[in-house]
């Protein structure tokens, strides 16, 4: 049995005499021993490569070259930057990363995105009120909510609960692009101020609507129903309001301006208010 260092190491066979092939080599190994060494080396190479190492390729090198090309086209793990990242296609044979979405969001197809998908709030077909905005405030002279009225819903409900720093009347205005409308609020109201009978009144072309027509320093609860504020037609508002002890107000307002409003401002006629304002949209069933 000959001797070979392969595959653990490379062989370095000693030279032989170029004239007398039957002579020993420079290390003293005989001719036959050198044959054995070479045979052992060849057998070790074969064992390392196995049978048919070229596979379907013409040569082992050709097979390795093909493998290099294939590996180069694979998606590396480094494309992922954080937990929850997704690998998405942006075009044929092209991959990209989609960062993880907001908690609770679902993956939604969107051809406008370069990735073809996006994270979005889950859609629902249940009818009912949808909370659009909610804000607590403290000692505010004016509270405005912008971009709460949109084409998403036709009708809206606004709920207000607040305390007052002084005796005042709580008013409101519709607004668009951050500017309040200060004209053409026609109001019809019925107010029961600590009695069992209502006093009615009519105010036309006012600069605002009145959530509660009676001046009071008591806490207030108000429900407002707005019909089509985000459509460029006059807006109807009905609201009920009650203060802590005495006042009950029932109001109908007709805002005779054909403007598509996107927000509302609540403000006291004097002092400040502290409380919570919520805006809901009425979602119709699909």
């Amino acid at each position: 049995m000959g001797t070979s260092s392969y595959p653990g190491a490379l062989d370095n066979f000693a030279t032989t005499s170029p004239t007398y092939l039957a002579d020993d080599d420079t290390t003293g190994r005989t001719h036959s021993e050198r044959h054995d060494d070479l045979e052992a080396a060849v057998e070790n190479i074969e064992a390392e490569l196995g049978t048919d190492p070229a596979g379907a390729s013409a040569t082992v090198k050709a097979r390795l070259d093909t493998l290099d090309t294939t590996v180069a086209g694979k998606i590396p793990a480094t494309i992922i930057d954080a937990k929850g990242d997704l690998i998405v296609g942006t075009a044929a044979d092209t991959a990209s990363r989609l960062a993880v979405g907001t908690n609770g969001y679902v993956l939604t197809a969107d051809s406008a995105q370069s990735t073809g998908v996006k994270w979005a709030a889950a859609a629902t077909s249940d009818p009912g009120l949808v909370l659009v905005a909610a804000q607590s405030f403290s000692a505010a002279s004016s509270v405005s909510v912008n971009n709460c009225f949109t084409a998403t819903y036709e009708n809206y409900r606004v709920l207000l609960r607040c305390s007052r720093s002084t005796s005042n009347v709580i008013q409101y205005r519709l607004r668009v692009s951050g500017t309040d409308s200060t004209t053409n609020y026609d109001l019809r109201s019925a107010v029961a101020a600590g009695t069992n009978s209502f006093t009615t009144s009519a105010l036309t072309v006012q600069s605002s609507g009145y959530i509660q027509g009676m001046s009071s320093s008591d806490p207030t609860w108000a429900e407002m129903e707005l019909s089509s504020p985000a459509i460029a037609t006059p807006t109807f508002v009905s609201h009920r309001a009650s203060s802590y002890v005495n006042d009950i107000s029932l109001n109908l307002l007709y805002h005779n301006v054909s403007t598509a409003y996107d927000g509302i401002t609540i403000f006291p006629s004097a002092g400040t208010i502290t409380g919570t304002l919520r805006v809901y949209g009425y979602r119709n069933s699909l």
Partner: protein
Amino acid sequence: MADVIEIDAATGEVVERDFTPEEVAQREADQAAVQAAAEAQADREAIANLNREAAIAHAKTLGFTDAMIAVMYPNLVEV
């Protein structure tokens, strides 16, 4: 505490700021309008009370009692 709180429902951004000079002027006009409306309402109520008292007095000259007036005109007189 700032005068004005503005909330953007689309982005959730909340801005707290003071009134602009224009808003101060509008607020003063609003207060004057509220005062005028309250005074007008008070005037209407005063007139309504006078009319009510006159109606009750006239009904009594005709021999109606408070109970009879209450039946005919609920809320006009307390029984």
